[in-house]
């Protein structure tokens, strides 16, 4: 599964994207797996209430199932326009 990071999350983790082989049933389980990857990951995901998630390029919740998902993106609340 491809995992993407944007904005300050990307900077804190130090990666724009990475391939993750996780048997995570939902987004929250994926976050747990990501936290274990490095101290930077753990720090970046310390407070998920500050983050938003998209599964296969659609906005989703942290309880969204990941069965069949190919791309999960994490990012702060959007600030365009």
């Amino acid at each position, binding site marked *: 599964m491809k995992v*993407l990071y*944007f*904005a*300050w999350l990307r900077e804190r983790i130090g990666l724009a994207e990475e391939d993750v082989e996780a048997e995570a049933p939902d987004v929250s389980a994926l976050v747990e797996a990501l936290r274990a990857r490095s101290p930077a990951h753990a720090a970046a995901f310390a407070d998920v209430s500050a983050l938003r998630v*998209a599964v296969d*390029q*659609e*906005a989703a919740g942290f309880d969204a199932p990941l069965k069949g998902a190919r791309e999960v*993106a994490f*990012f*702060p*609340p*959007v*600030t*365009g*326009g």
Partner: protein
Amino acid sequence: MSAPEPAQIPILISVQEADFDVSAEIDALTRGRADVGAVACFVGLVRDVTKAAEGAPVMAMTLEHYPGMTEKSLEAIAREAARRWPLLGVRIVHRVGRLAPADRIVLAAAASAHRGAAFEAAEFLMDYLKTRAPFWKKEETPDGARWVDARESDEHAAARWER
């Protein structure tokens, strides 16, 4: 309850580094057709003060986005507007990359027979774009660069349209 699908109307979405020309974009919605009586449009520009402090000068801004999802989310917002109002066309242009104060950032335009629908749809487009389209702004100030925080007022503006 399934709402009727709106007739196919021009929905034109661009995410680009280049600047845009407002006249040309409005013309694209109205050229060759005389059923459009009203175009409401919005242009957002880079201000030289930070939103947080209204103090430290902004020297430049970089807009990051999520290629792939960005276009899809803008198109979904435009289609939702066309479902809610009798529109004859929607145009959204959003710039990405590095921008200077007074540079244009975004154009949102809605065409309709009458002005009420055009105005409401344009405001809806901007409120949803501000809260749902994956763009992030990073401001450069003399104190360093920092990511712009999401504004609660934008959430409130978008919540007006919930139903």
